[in-house]
């Protein structure tokens, strides 16, 4: 059993499938009157967030609480980090407080890997810079499996700002482990040249969304991350929306069964139009609900037993 979840590559097919199966059981708890399980009673989970986040932090908090763990929320604003404390000193403080798991989001790629060497507890990467976001990939895989019944053999198009997207990286790794084929679609400036093949052989790249759409089972739209853009990667937002935005006519070119995903938060009108986002093909709200179940499964598998 793995001790940390830092990357989509930490999971082999069997472990990933076990997490998805466990998540399916955890999902039934959401429908019960008593939405609580005693599995992590007396364990402490620290949410260490150096970057703004709504859904991921709330999702991890809900997941830990449904498993009866104690949750300590830490955000860089209003903490000693504002006074200049280093990540290592913060980690040692958490260690001294007896954190069994640290869920970390950090603007620097690789921060969770460093953290994992400093603390005794499990570290879960909740997004590091432009690197990885493995629980998002797991919840995306869970959503695909519950909508389409399988993952192996699916053709998934990941569309948009791949360069800055940790969601894309983790998804490429996990989906190829689980036997799906991924095609990355976006403007050449937003797709790293060598990364797709390095992440997972068999990953395709296309710069033309319209030719890819008719052959896919899943379209995953990525958010255009304006806050990460110091340079102009495309001439204008309108041009981006016209070439790579998913609108009604494009959606109708998809196969009948295909679903539309988005990790959120959306820029409506930029990479996705409201017509698509609110259509029955869109799984965006489902993804949020599934996020809690998947994170419960991850926390249970990391903390539930004696895995030291």
């Amino acid at each position, binding site marked *: 059993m793995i001790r940390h979840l830092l990357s989509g590559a930490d999971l082999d097919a069997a472990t990933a499938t076990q997490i998805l*199966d*466990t998540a*399916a059981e955890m999902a*039934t708890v959401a429908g*019960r009157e008593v939405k609580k399980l005693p599995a992590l009673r007396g364990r402490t989970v620290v949410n260490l967030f150096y970057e703004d986040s709504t859904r991921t932090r709330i999702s991890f908090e809900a997941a830990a609480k449904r498993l009866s763990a104690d949750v300590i929320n830490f955000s860089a604003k209003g903490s000693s980090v504002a006074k200049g404390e280093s990540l290592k000193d913060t980690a040692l403080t958490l260690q001294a407080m007896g954190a069994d798991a640290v869920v970390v989001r950090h603007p620097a790629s690789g921060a969770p890997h460093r953290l994992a060497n400093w603390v005794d507890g499990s570290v879960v990467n909740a997004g590091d810079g432009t690197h990885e976001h493995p629980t998002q990939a797991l919840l995306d895989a869970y959503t695909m499996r519950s909508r389409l019944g399988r993952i192996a053999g699916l053709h998934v198009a990941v569309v948009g700002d791949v360069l800055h997207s940790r969601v894309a990286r983790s998804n490429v790794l996990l989906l190829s482990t689980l036997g799906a084929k991924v095609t990355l679609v976006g403007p050449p400036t937003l797709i790293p040249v060598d990364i797709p093949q390095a992440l997972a052989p068999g990953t395709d790249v296309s710069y033309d969304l319209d030719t890819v759409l008719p052959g896919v089972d899943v379209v995953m739209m990525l958010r255009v991350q304006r806050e990460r853009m110091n340079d102009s990667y495309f001439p204008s937002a309108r041009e981006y929306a016209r070439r790579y935005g998913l609108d009604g006519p494009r959606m109708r070119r998809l196969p009948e069964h295909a679903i539309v995903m988005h990790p959120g938060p959306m820029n409506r009108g930029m990479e996705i139009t409201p017509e698509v986002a609110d259509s029955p093909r869109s799984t965006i709200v489902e993804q949020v609900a599934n996020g809690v179940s998947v994170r419960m499964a991850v926390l*249970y598998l990391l903390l*539930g*037993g*004696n*895995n030291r």
Partner: protein
Amino acid sequence: MAYPPAAHPSPPRQPSVKVILAAADVSRVVDRIAHQILEKTQGAADTVLLGIPTRGVPLAKRLAARISTFEDVTVPVGVLDITLYRDDLRRHATRAVGPTDLPSDGIDGKRVILVDDVLFSGRTVRAALDALSDVGRPASVQLAVLVDRGHRQLPIRADYVGKNIPTALAESVKVTLAETDGADEVKLYGGASA
């Protein structure tokens, strides 16, 4: 201080295996429990059978099938996974969670009969009672087991017992069922005496 040497060196201890119930016995025992349930529950009215995985589940299904043969009543059968309620989670590597599958009418106000293969320490049943209170509020809870081997560590007893097997702590009881293991049998392993 040493014990006096044995008169002749004893042969290495072979783990002994003793068949307690053969296939025909298991089926007779299940029939008897089904009759007892009908008798004690006034014809299995408002009764739900919940099997505890792994082997409690096929046992619960068999009991329901026998009850419907004897009296022509249909007893809802469900599955209650207790993994997340165990008190020994932290002593082992993470256990896989199985499905919990309750009858569509739920268990509120019903007489729930928990079904398991072996009653030993009582800790599984304790976990099942906790799990039960999180999924509903039954009117009453009873317990049916194929084998009671004693050595309780909690104040728990069974309402329906297929077979009482007096055991030593070092011994182990293994139930196999056709549905899960290919054949019906109850065996007692271990102990020095054959």
